[in-house]
């Protein structure tokens, strides 16, 4: 392979810098659509100039400067200039103060620090804006991946198995909605903070999960989305280091991502957690996940919903082999999670943990209650778990029927195959037990 040509180098720079550039511009022009347009203008400039001059040393600053100049041009030509005068005036004051600093170096350093912190603040504002609750879930995801992830419309479309035009429309509408709702470019105040942060974390985890578990079709994973969500989560952890649930979510994603290499067999078949070869778990990521979990705990956030889920994942991660899993602790954590964020799915997982800690009968009781849950009616894991518990307790015929039912409910071809296999095994065992030749 050769050294990347300038186009590839520019793409790489764009991926690294674009979110920050857009963030700074949004603060200047107070319009997400215009900000992205100006950033794209700067990119076009780079595509024209850099093949000749080479990629500049401070590529981010170059792009930002070009984009800001374009922004000022636009502002001069519009009524926004009146409002901006006040802000520019403030900036001039700051510069005057700094001009009185002792040495030129101190001045540069001071400007740099202020600048870097400001850009961080702007980036955090952009995160909250892209995930604003006034937008639909799909719009938040598309806008986040576009503005913060730097993904192209085509990439987003392919990752979510929708048409490119659909994604393009979603993004256009999202920008319009933000403008019409006059969503302020700010980090939400204390009262709203928890709810708004929750929206951000939900978007990131949705992106991660889309990559982590396909809902239809034969391919089980779309790893790029997992990496993207992780990257954005890590960035957010640096931007908002005092928010425990951010670290909780990052911990959860790091640990789940650690299993990527063990979840799929060479033929593409899914391998369940308890059957995975743990030597193939990425222990570097597990270490990072455990560290993030500790950060959440140190901030007093051990009982947050993401931190609890991460703690459960950490229990699995700490077990050298499946047999060493601390199921009682997992059951207790699911108990805490059920009280905090109750859902039938959490109950189902709690049932599995109970059965592993205290025997299948303990779990079956809870699972039987869940069969009445309407929201789980079409959830293949419910009959799958029930089948597993029955198989361990004895009634093989019934177990087989549950696995068959589960097989009809899953949309994943390979998972269906796995479930039908178990159904057949149970039927076979039932036949043997009944004394058939």
């Amino acid at each position: 392979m050769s050294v990347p040509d300038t186009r590839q180098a520019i793409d790489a720079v764009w991926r690294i810098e674009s979110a920050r550039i857009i963030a700074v511009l949004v603060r200047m022009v107070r319009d997400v659509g215009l900000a992205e347009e100006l950033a794209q203008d700067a990119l076009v400039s780079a595509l024209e100039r850099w093949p000749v001059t080479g990629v500049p040393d401070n590529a981010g600053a170059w792009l930002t400067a070009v984009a800001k100049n374009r922004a000022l041009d636009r502002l001069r030509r519009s009524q926004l200039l009146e409002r901006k005068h006040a802000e520019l005036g403030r900036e001039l004051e700051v510069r005057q103060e700094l001009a009185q600093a002792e040495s030129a170096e101190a001045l540069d350093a001071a400007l740099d620090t202020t600048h870097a912190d400001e850009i961080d603040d702007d980036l955090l504002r952009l995160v909250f804006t892209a995930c604003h609750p006034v937008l639909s879930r799909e719009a938040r995801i598309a806008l986040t991946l576009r503005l913060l992830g730097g993904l192209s419309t085509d990439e987003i479309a392919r990752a979510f198995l929708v048409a490119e035009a659909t994604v393009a429309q979603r993004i256009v509408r999202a920008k319009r909605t933000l403008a019409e709702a006059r969503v302020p470019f700010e980090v939400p105040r204390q009262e709203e903070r928890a709810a708004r942060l929750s929206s951000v974390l939900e978007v990131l985890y949705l992106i991660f999960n889309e990559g982590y578990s396909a809902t239809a079709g034969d391919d089980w994973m779309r790893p790029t989305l997992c990496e993207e969500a992780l990257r954005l989560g890590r960035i957010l952890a640096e931007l908002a280091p005092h928010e425990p649930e951010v670290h909780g979510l990052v911990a959860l994603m790091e640990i789940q991502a650690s299993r990527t290499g063990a979840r799929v067999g060479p033929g593409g078949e899914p391998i369940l957690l308890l059957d995975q070869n743990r030597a193939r778990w990425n222990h570097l990521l597990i270490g990072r996940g455990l560290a993030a979990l500790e950060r959440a705990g140190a901030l007093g956030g051990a009982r947050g919903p993401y931190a609890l889920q991460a703690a459960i994942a950490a229990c699995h991660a700490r077990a050298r082999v499946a047999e060493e899993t601390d199921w009682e602790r997992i059951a207790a954590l699911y108990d805490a999670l059920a009280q905090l964020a109750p859902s039938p799915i959490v109950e189902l997982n709690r049932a599995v943990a109970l059965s592993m800690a205290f025997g299948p009968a303990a779990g079956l009781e809870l699972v039987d209650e869940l069969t009445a849950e309407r929201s789980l009616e079409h959830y293949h894991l419910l009959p799958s778990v029930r089948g597993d518990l029955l198989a361990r307790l004895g009634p093989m015929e019934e177990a087989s029927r549950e696995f068959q039912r589960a097989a009809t409910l899953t949309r994943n071809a390979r998972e269906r195959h796995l479930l039908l296999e178990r159904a057949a095994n149970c039927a076979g065992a039932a036949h043997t037990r009944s004394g058939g030749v």
Partner: protein
Amino acid sequence: MRFMMLMIPSGYETAAPGTMPDVKAIEAMMKYNESLQKAGVLLALDGLHPPSMGARITFSGGKAKATDGPFGDGRETLGGYWMIQVKSRAEAIEWASRCPASEKETIEVRQVQDFSDFPVELQQAAADLSELQSGKSVTP
């Protein structure tokens, strides 16, 4: 994609035990490391003590033999590494290019092998081995 950025400081092969980089260099490097962390791409990093504190193992005739450093053969040696997670080789190169390295330093960028990089037969063989090792119980 994961990449390692391998730091190769010229002259480190003859550095005395306990050699440390100078304060200004450390400061600049820490800012760089911070930028990797803030960008969400840093997975791990470490510095390595010089070869004068290390050893080499050779395998001549099937026998392992250990020799203490320094090795005096003038070969370049590693000073440290970063492991990063990025979308492309070009991005890894861009990050490496931003390192505040001196004229005496070279960074080699190498992609980390993922299991899925290997051909299917090899993966299948490894899967069979792992089944043997894990002593999987067969559920009915």
